[in-house]
């Protein structure tokens, strides 16, 4: 049954160094408060999986030295420019990048969701991605003739970590049309969620809300974190804190600046809501 934890710190403590952690992109609900807890705790060697890409949280975790491998179709903070700590870590060889492509991430998670060892996928052949991914195979379509197709191994995260608007007291989490979060939860061994609010209700009782709900069955633990996605935004609830993110990008151009950012907003303080 879903554990209701009283602090985000308790939730983040369930992620060990070395864990394979699936995270959403910046527009799909990121558990930033939990990410800051991970940095404070100094976890190491995470295998971060961007579903299908990763943004601000990846850049911060990489900059803070928490990440050993990032597996993603992209690392980007979008309109704010290149992800500075990611770019620096790549140049320094400080992080292993498993470059992927969006549908390959989704397909790998779907393979895990279905409990199958691999998923075939069209396209990709001839991309240098294939050349550099020794965990991918090119096989013959058993229903075709001279018809090569990429076989992608299942992606089975240890943890899916994200932030959502509403959960109920049973542990059901409403995600609306952000069904990549449901796919993450199905595929992952454990799913940890921070939410804006926990309602005294049953989201599955009404089919109108059930249609956009991850059942508690897949939700390992929950913690309430109001404004928990800040400084990035959360769907229609609140926008990103533009000024804060621009300042981050500016500071994180250098290692020193990034350290100053961490000191101010992670280690000594908190991001303003």
């Amino acid at each position, binding site marked *: 049954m879903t554990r209701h934890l009283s602090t985000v710190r308790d939730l983040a403590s369930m992620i060990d160094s070395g864990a394979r952690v699936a995270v959403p992109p910046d*527009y*799909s609900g990121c558990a930033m408060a939990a990410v800051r807890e991970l940095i404070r705790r100094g976890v190491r060697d995470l295998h971060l999986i961007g*579903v*299908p*890409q990763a943004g601000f949280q990846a850049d911060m975790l990489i900059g803070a030295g928490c990440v050993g491998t990032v597996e*993603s*179709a*992209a*690392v*980007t903070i*979008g*309109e704010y420019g*290149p*992800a500075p700590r*990611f*770019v620096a870590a*790549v*140049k320094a*060889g400080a992080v*292993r*990048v498993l*470059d*992927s*492509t*969006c*549908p*390959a991430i*989704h*397909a790998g998670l*779907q393979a895990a969701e279905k409990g199958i060892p691999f998923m075939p*996928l*069209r*396209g*990709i*052949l*001839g*991309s*240098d*991605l294939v050349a*550099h991914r020794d965990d991918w195979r090119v096989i013959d379509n058993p229903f075709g003739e*001279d*018809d*090569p*197709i990429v076989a992608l191994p299942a992606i089975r995260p240890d943890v899916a970590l994200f932030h959502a608007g509403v959960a109920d007291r049973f542990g059901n989490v409403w995600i609306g*049309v*952000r*069904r*990549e*979060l*449901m*796919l993450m939860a199905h595929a992952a061994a454990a799913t940890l969620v921070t939410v804006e609010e926990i309602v005294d209700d049953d989201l599955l009782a009404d089919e109108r809300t059930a249609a956009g709900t991850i059942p508690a069955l897949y939700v390992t633990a929950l913690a309430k974190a109001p404004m928990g996605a800040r400084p990035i935004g959360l769907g*229609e609830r609140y926008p990103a804190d533009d000024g804060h993110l621009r300042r981050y990008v500016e500071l994180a151009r250098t290692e020193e600046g990034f350290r100053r950012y961490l000191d101010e907003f992670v280690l000594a303080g908190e991001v303003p809501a």
Partner: protein
Amino acid sequence: MSDYRAEELLIDVIAAMLEGLGHVAVGASSPIPGAAALLARERSDGGMRVSVLGSRRHNFFTDGGRELFDCAAQGRIDAFFLGGGQIDGQGNINLVGIGDYPRSKVRFPGSFGSAYLYFLIPRVILFRQEHNRKILVPKVDFISAPGVSDANVYRPGGPHALVTGRCVFRFDKPRRRFALATIHPGHTIEEVRDETSFDFDTPDSIATTPAPDAETLTLLRGPVAEALAETYPDFAARVFGELVTR
């Protein structure tokens, strides 16, 4: 020189490539392709659907992040747009980095969905406003997605054209290379040659890219600007804002 912006010409020329299509999808961070798709939709008399990633109002997907890709594989998307930190003469695009992978000298965000959509969407329009020898290279340092494939590779899709701030190249699939199609007003063939470091075909006569007409500008600065502003408010204000006459 008529009263339009460079972006408006690019939007118009891309929109012309979308005429008659049923469903055009636009990826993230693509205001000019997005505006082009919305313009083509305005002209389609209700016949075209446009899906703009990142939009709430112009996005019809309800099955999560995978749906765009599944939808493309189902053959339900007729056109899409890709860019590239590097684009080469065989239509290969590089969204990963410059220099020796994996420790790229310049690292781009990553390949996103390009390695897939480039294969599956019939009409992929490459768009990069900057046009110089560092971007348009003889051979990309990393192939995020190849422009052409061997005959036995399942590939209903691929490059249709490359639109830059200087000109339009059409992709010649049998010849596996670009052919210069039109040059934008104010630019020259010599300039295009100088700024392009891949080889391309040059037909005997090269037309000038037609300027957007008054009707187009009215659509652009009216309903297109309005629809685009939801997803790209800054771009819409900058490009269309000052010229809007209402």
